[in-house]
């Protein structure tokens, strides 16, 4: 059996194997550029009216882009093996940052999600996303396909749970949902039995109900969820945002109102349009054609990450890539689902497009690691040769 398989495998020269993933880089570049344009188009009129420089917010985002690109290449230069070794440190630093932000928040007496670094404000909860993915990958890499023990699953929960609790104290509901989704996908990718996942799902639902009943969630978080269930009630200001967003998106039509021409976004009817609702500007200005193209680009990116996962040379690599695919897909689905009125407002940014440094940089960090995995991929697909599994 193994004889026939190895005979089928075509060995390729080293140089070809380590060629960068131009498709992934290309998509990141296109979406980043689109993000900068959209930030300019949505923030420009307001800034001009205030007497500031029209492009100032876009320029600010550009600095994050530069930092992100540097991070991407640093992450790519280190090999996947090195990253696996660094994972405990990454995880530890993240926990330290999360604890620090709570401390600072305590000091200034209010909810605090970021650490001021001068150039930009670091949001540890965003950094925590790739860190948790790395941590989970390292933990679950040791499991055997189809035989993930409950003890390992509980260890995984403990690994996610510590930062999750720290984030919950901030509080940041969106990030916790990301953790949940990514954990489930990574457990699945790691070979957890489907029955185990079903049981976990039931437990999660029970936990959520208890949390709401026990008033563990802040009132506005409950409002977002329940307000979403009665969308007709325009009076709820929480619904106002989404209704405005849908009106603007609807107004885009098939081909949009043209770049910089979105009436609703230009006139500031849509709130938070450079961050959470940036997709609204895309859909209004570029229409269904543009919006669907953006979703297609994300799809290809997710596909690339899944291909990286399938070609990774070890389980750590394939789990990191699957985790990143899950993270990107979840952000895209929840964010766009929110702007089109399918999902409640949770405050998750749209990768590459939303204004903000921490998430952009940490996303590129995660993708950089994934890219490193691609560079160091195996010629022979994982699991094809018995005994190669690590």
């Amino acid at each position, binding site marked *: 059996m193994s004889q026939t398989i190895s005979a089928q495998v075509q060995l390729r020269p080293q140089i070809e194997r380590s060629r960068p993933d131009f498709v992934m880089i290309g998509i990141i570049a296109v979406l980043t550029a689109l993000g900068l344009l959209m930030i300019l188009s949505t923030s420009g009129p307001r800034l001009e009216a205030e007497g500031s420089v029209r492009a100032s917010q876009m320029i600010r985002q550009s600095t994050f882009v530069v930092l992100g690109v540097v991070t991407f290449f640093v992450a790519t230069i280190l090999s996947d093996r090195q990253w696996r070794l660094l994972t405990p440190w990454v995880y530890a630093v993240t926990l330290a940052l999360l604890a620090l932000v709570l401390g600072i928040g305590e000091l200034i007496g209010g909810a605090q999600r970021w650490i001021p670094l001068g150039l930009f404000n670091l949001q540890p909860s965003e950094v925590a996303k790739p860190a948790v993915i790395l941590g989970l990958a390292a933990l679950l890499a040791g499991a055997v396909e189809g035989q993930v023990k409950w003890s390992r699953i509980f260890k995984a929960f403990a690994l996610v749970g510590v930062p999750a609790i720290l984030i919950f104290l901030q509080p940041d509901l969106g990030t916790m949902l990301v953790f949940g989704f990514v954990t489930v996908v990574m457990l699945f990718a790691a070979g957890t039995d489907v029955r185990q996942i079903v049981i976990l799902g039931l437990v999660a639902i029970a936990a959520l109900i208890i949390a709401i009943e026990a008033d563990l969630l802040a009132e506005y978080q409950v409002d977002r969820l329940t307000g979403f269930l009665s969308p007709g009630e325009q009076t709820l200001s929480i619904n106002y945002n989404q209704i405005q967003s849908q009106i603007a998106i609807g107004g885009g039509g098939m081909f949009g109102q043209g770049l910089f021409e979105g009436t609703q976004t230009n006139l500031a009817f849509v709130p938070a349009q450079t961050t959470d609702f940036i997709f609204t500007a895309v859909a209004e200005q570029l229409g269904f054609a543009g919006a669907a193209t953006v*979703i297609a680009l994300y799809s290809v990116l997710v596909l690339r990450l899944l291909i990286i996962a399938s070609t990774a040379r070890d389980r750590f690599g394939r789990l990191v890539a699957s985790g990143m695919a899950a993270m990107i897909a979840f952000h895209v689905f929840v964010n766009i689902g929110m702007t089109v009125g399918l999902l409640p407002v949770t405050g998750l940014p749209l990768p590459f497009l939303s204004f903000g440094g921490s998430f952009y940089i940490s996303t590129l960090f995660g993708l950089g690691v994934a890219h490193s995995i691609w560079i160091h991929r195996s010629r022979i697909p994982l699991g094809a040769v018995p005994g190669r599994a690590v």
Partner: protein
Amino acid sequence: MNFGWRLVAIGTLVAGLFGILVLRLWYLQVTEVEASLEVAFEQRIRVVEIEAPRGDIFDNKGKELLAGTVATLRVVVDRKLIAFEEEEFLIQNLSALLAIPASEIRREFETRGPGGRFPLGDQITQSTGISVLENIEDFPGVTIEPVPFRIYPLLETAAHIVGYVGSPNDDDLERTDIDINDQVGKFGIEGSYDRLLRGTPGQIIYRVNAKGEILGVLEERPPKPGGSVITTIDLDVQRFVEDTLISGVLLARQEETARREEEQSARREEEQSIFRGAAVVIDVTDGSIIAMASVPAFDPSIFSDGRLSQDEWQGLAEKAVFNNFAIQGLFPPGSSFKVIVNALARQRRISPVLEAEYEEIVDQVADPTAFFSDGELLFPNTPPLNDWKDGGHGLVDLSESLAQSVNSYYWSIALRIWRQRDVDWPENLLQDFARRLSFGHRTGIDLPFEQPGLVPDREWFQFNQQNQTGLVRKEGGWSGGDLMNIATGQGALSVTPLQMAVAYAALVNGGTVWEPRVVDSVRDAENNLLFTNVPSAADKIDFRPGLVDELKADLNRVVNSETGTAKKAFEGFCDDDVPDDECAALQEVGGKTGTAEIRQATDRVEAIDTAWFVGAAPLSDPRWVVAVVIDQGGSGGRVAAPTARRIFQFLMGENPDPVRAGSESER
């Protein structure tokens, strides 16, 4: 290949989720695009209504302005453009600018409601407006705009006809074309022709952003000005009638004061009752009102700026200045009603019932209308009824009964009607005739608040007796005595001066009962006709041939025969050097005095009779009927007839004499 299927599963899940997003986008952007665009458009615009200038009101020649609209520069507050926390700051600044107490402005803000847009304060000067615009940061949401303002250049002249405008009440607000910031016609022509006068408001559609800040003008639809009303009022006659009526009322007041001094009345001056009067000049050929005056009058401008205080209004309302007595005043007509009975007697050849002792005397003259008045009418079971002239009027016929205003004659006519009821004619013969002549119901004049008056009959009497309204006696039924009261214009009979004018007009024009009108037509800004008020007859009575001429001759005798009750009042109708029998104009005037007894007087106010004169001219080809009533004026011949005489002199081109007392008639 276990791992492979897991990645495929993840990929499928992601593809499914993204697929849902694409479907949703298709629904929003392709299926529902129209609805979204519409909602989006409505959000991005702000519609501001522009008040249409109200149409003008002109005299019958379309030249003299009775009511008009001018643009005044005003401070306009738009609460939609004011942040809530800025309002107090704005109120304080406006208070300082306009010198209006802040509390008053605050109250105005509350009345107009959030989002209200309204002018505040009086007209401002150009320089005040500029200083507001220069310091606009102190006046958020304020604009300086020309706002239409109603003016009444003639002040009190024709005020009761023109009417006034004011803020809408709850009933007005039910109309779809009225909103809380509008001015609405309340009274007079302003009230009855409000819909044609108000025009169509214009609109400015602004582009706004999410904060409601105006970015530019999208569309501007100018307002359509209201139609201009051409009235039937001859302003020369109107002014003259008003002046003359005031003279008449003043004459009545002098007479009253003199009488009191004579009687050494203990009443002090301030306890004097308020004198009221009304006069109507109607065109008998088409029912047009040529002049209509009511005393006391008011200046309609006091309502335009909406600043008349409740107390001020109350004070004026107590003086009844807002009542148009020509159509709203109900008076017993007294002897002036005898003309109606006279016409009916001629039409149906009704002869008076004679007292037995005089039958022989009367038979000698072989005139079925002959009657002997000894000053006292005696009937079984009733106290004697007295003529106003002591000792009676002697032998009179139908014509002379009118000239001398012989009460007993008309009582006897009524008695005849009563006795022959249900035999020769229905019981309500007289009432039905009166109703055909416009009494007891509204004449249909195109002015609001017209009173119907009352022509009493058995049905009315029984209704009030059963319901114990206090208007009729508790015991006994409707009787001949009640009908006799009507025949002399007394009792419960009540009429408006306009009804009197319409009835006389019908009697002298050959039977056409006109629906009177004060508006001839309404035209738009391009002079196109919007509405024509075609003269319309409410009824046409077929009079016996010769009746109208006989009646006109009788009316002339009242003013022009030695026995006539208005003889003294009409003396010297022509210029001083022309004797009455050579005065051609005097042959062309006729009318009837009336002195209606007021039976019930309050403790404070002494009962003083209502003085009437209703007449027509020129008798050979009648054009005008003039009705004059002076409330508490005393004798009709003494006060009302001289007032009417002066009006007739003016109408017929004679030199008008001052109003001076005529003879005391009919007590």
